[in-house]
């Protein structure tokens, strides 16, 4: 049995757990705890270790999705989670520009860990105050070649689209 790993990262409350939950065939293994600091106002629970989801490709191949904890005090987990990953998705909340800088910082951190391909998912595109992916690409200071994809993390088709775009990017890189 071959296993392949992808990492879903991004700032606190960007929608990583929801993203994995929308496509995983198993109930996402969540290691969430009640929040005890000032981020309590945003949501009641957060991922303190990791989320874990699974997609069985065929009888010999399984894709695992790992969600990283969004809070900086758990960033010691990031490097461990990034080892051996095929690629990663950076989730960004399109209606919270105050998290863009943090998203860019996380993206840079993961690029330092590994040279694997990645895409940026502009989550909550169904919200009226959402920044467009084009504006977010400029806001995040990303090169033209980097994909910033519209995403609604609680919709399976949208999550599939993001994962497929990441896989196409990996495929293109493999052909290079």
């Amino acid at each position, binding site marked *: 049995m071959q296993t392949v790993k992808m990492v879903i990262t991004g700032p606190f409350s960007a929608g990583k757990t929801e993203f994995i939950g929308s496509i995983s065939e198993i109930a996402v293994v969540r290691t969430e705890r009640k929040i005890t600091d000032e981020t309590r106002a945003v949501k009641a629970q957060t991922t303190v270790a990791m989320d874990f989801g699974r997609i069985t490709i065929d009888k010999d*191949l399984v894709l695992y999705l790992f969600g990283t904890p969004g809070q900086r005090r758990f960033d010691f987990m990031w490097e461990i989670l990034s080892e051996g990953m095929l690629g990663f998705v950076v989730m960004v909340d399109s209606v919270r*520009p105050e998290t863009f800088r943090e998203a860019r910082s996380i993206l840079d951190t993961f690029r330092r860990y590994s040279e694997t391909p990645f895409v940026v998912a502009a989550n909550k595109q169904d919200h009226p105050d959402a920044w467009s992916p084009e504006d977010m690409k400029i806001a995040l200071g990303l090169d033209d070649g980097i994909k910033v994809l519209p995403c609604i993390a609680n919709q399976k088709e949208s999550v599939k689209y993001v994962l497929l775009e990441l896989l196409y990017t990996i495929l293109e890189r493999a052909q290079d």
Partner: protein
Amino acid sequence: MALKGNLRDFSIHQLLNLINLAHKTGSLQVKPEPVLRSANGHASSAALFFREGRLIHAAFEGKPTRLTDVMVQVGRLTPEQAQTVNARSRVDTDKELGLLLIQNGYLTQNDIIQGVRGYLLETVYQLFTWAAGDFHFEPNQLPPEERITVPLSLENVILEGNRRQQEWERLRDEIPDLEVPLRFAERPSANLRDISLTREQWQVISFINSKNTIKQIGEYLSLDEFQIRRVVYSLKRNGLIEMAQPVRVEPVAPRGPVPGAKLSRSVLLRIIDGVRRR
């Protein structure tokens, strides 16, 4: 698509860069936070207007923006001349005011364009010193028709604004804390006979004692944070006054990236097919 946020998270430099690159048309409203308003002396919001990524108009809320008012503010017209022209104006549009200014021989067309350009630039540059404040970009909203517009390329604005921002950041690095008093240098390094002080420098010096903090001196003299830092820095550089140096932490060098997992093309195609089928 909305473009809302706070300058604390997304600076004016980044915003203008986005508007320039995306060739946006519309208005950008920026509302400074209360603490900043008192420091900078602005009690109102700023509105910048853009057409296809170029700055065309700018104003602070509550501040007159008629052409004659603008020309007075940039020092190209006296208040008396402005009053004369305003009294003759019937419809009060910038176009008519501009014609009257030229007909009266007060200004040439080039004077007007350069004056408006200077006013636009000074308005937008002030925003570069705002560290925080809610902003909102409203697509396709243009300035009132009666106001004159002069299109300015944002690239140069961003470059100069960036230079000013860097100066502002350098001043903040040099003088990170405004809650400290100043003291005269015990052994001034400079030859005092060769130093000529500006009016503002003299004013600051007159307030130096063991109780007055930099912030208080700035408030006494109605200088914003940028201005008081600049004056204090110049005095410090001349060796006239002293301050404690901030502690600097050396960054730790990160380790290099490692190669990612490698899979054959056939396995990748199987994964793509598997995800598609879900």
